[in-house]
């Protein structure tokens, strides 16, 4: 078999609901364990060991929750749009299941980023909320998540709702670079890019490593929750098929 053939076989396998159900059931505990380890280290190192910031003092520790959740809010949206595109283009039903399963998780991360951000903003900027480009575009991201989720539910025919929501998710992806680059394009109250930038990160290792570890932990946590939700989605969507009846019976 050529590489191309192997890739296509893998692709087809990934598109089969029983395989996805089994794989996500097998992956979930590993991702959850990894998330616990990475977040455990990140929390201990970030909250207890890392030094307080010379300007912001102890309030800087908000970063260990705020930044990973904000990053995840974008990553999850991109993943949702990619899954939607795969589902629309190749008519792979599992793609819709992935998009439907990840939308509420992404919306939760967005809310978490907004809430932690405003709690952090209170002592630092003196206000819970500012109509700043990055804050506003993050809020738009939340509205987009809500729009995609409600559009999916609005249709009586679920497959039509799936495709409509998929299209909206793809259209909304234009907002992702706006959120990401808003601090670069506009003079913003929010601080600029500190980690993902050309050249070395503008942050000492004692703060950077816990932060990266928290990010990894958030990613793994997302993977775990996605796996769990995906199982439910797939079971619900395939409830008429024989393999689900056998899986539920055993």
């Amino acid at each position, binding site marked *: 078999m050529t590489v191309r053939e192997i890739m296509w076989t893998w692709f087809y396998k990934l598109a089969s609901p029983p395989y996805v159900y089994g794989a996500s059931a097998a992956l979930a505990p590993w991702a959850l364990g990894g998330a616990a380890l990475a977040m455990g280290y990140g929390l201990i190192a970030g909250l207890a060991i890392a030094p307080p910031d010379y300007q912001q003092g102890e309030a800087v520790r908000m970063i260990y929750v705020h930044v990973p959740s904000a990053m995840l809010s974008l990553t999850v949206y991109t993943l949702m749009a990619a899954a939607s595109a795969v589902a629309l283009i190749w008519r792979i039903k599992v793609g819709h299941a992935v998009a439907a399963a990840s939308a509420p998780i992404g919306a939760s991360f967005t809310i978490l980023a907004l809430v932690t951000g405003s709690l952090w903003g209170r002592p630092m900027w003196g206000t819970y909320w500012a109509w700043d480009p990055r804050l506003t575009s993050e809020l738009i991201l939340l509205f987009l998540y809500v729009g995609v989720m409600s559009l999916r539910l*609005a249709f009586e025919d679920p497959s039509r709702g799936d495709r409509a929501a998929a*299209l909206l998710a793809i259209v909304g992806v234009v907002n992702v670079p706006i959120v990401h680059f808003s601090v670069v394009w506009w003079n913003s109250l929010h601080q600029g890019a500190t980690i993902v930038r050309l050249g070395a990160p503008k942050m000492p290792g004692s703060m950077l490593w816990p932060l990266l570890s928290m990010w990894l932990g958030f990613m793994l946590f997302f993977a775990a929750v996605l796996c769990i939700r995906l199982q439910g989605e797939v079971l619900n969507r395939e409830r008429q098929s024989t393999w689900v009846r056998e899986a539920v019976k055993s």
Partner: protein
Amino acid sequence: MNVGLLEAFALIVRRELCLSFRRPDQLLQPLVFFLIVTTLFPLGLNLQLSLLRDMSPGVLWVAALLSSLLSLDSLFKSDADDGTLEQLALCGQDLTVIVVAKTFAHWLVSGAALVLVSPVVGTALGIPTEAFLTMMLSLTLGTLTLSWLGAIGAGLTVGLKRGNVLLSLIVLPLAMPLLIFGAGATDRAISGTSSAGALYFLAALCVFTCTLAPFAATTALRITLE
């Protein structure tokens, strides 16, 4: 009968305009809504004219967005209800051309009309005459972009019984950059500084949506019509 792309475009635009002018009440309602909403702000806020002038770009643009949204619901709805839309989709002509023509005709009777009314509203809100040109230019670009965004939203919600609120929920987040730059351009024109940057950004958004949104709107219609 073989009809070329441009001919089909012209035929649909003519049909849409004909239909709109036979129902002048529906044509006027969004415009009256636009006037009423802008009247509500000074009444509710009880402002001095100088304060009102500071707020006027935002008020004007919010009212324009809302009244455009109001008329968007009718973009595909009546044709979908009586089955015309399905016939158009089946007629062998590229559906994208039909969508482009319908959206353009819709913009002519809603967006362009709104731009023409805007000086009246602008005067009432205390916007100086020097800023009218920028205001109308930004509104032209803005309503055109909004019509395209709205075509996607209307295409997605056309099959739904209560799609109106959902349509707003879908379109408004996408339209927020428009509001920021449109109100920004008008604001700068009022204060006498150059509004070129914001206008260029609006024009870029307009070109971006004009080129990509027709395909998204067509796909949306295909999904809901199937």
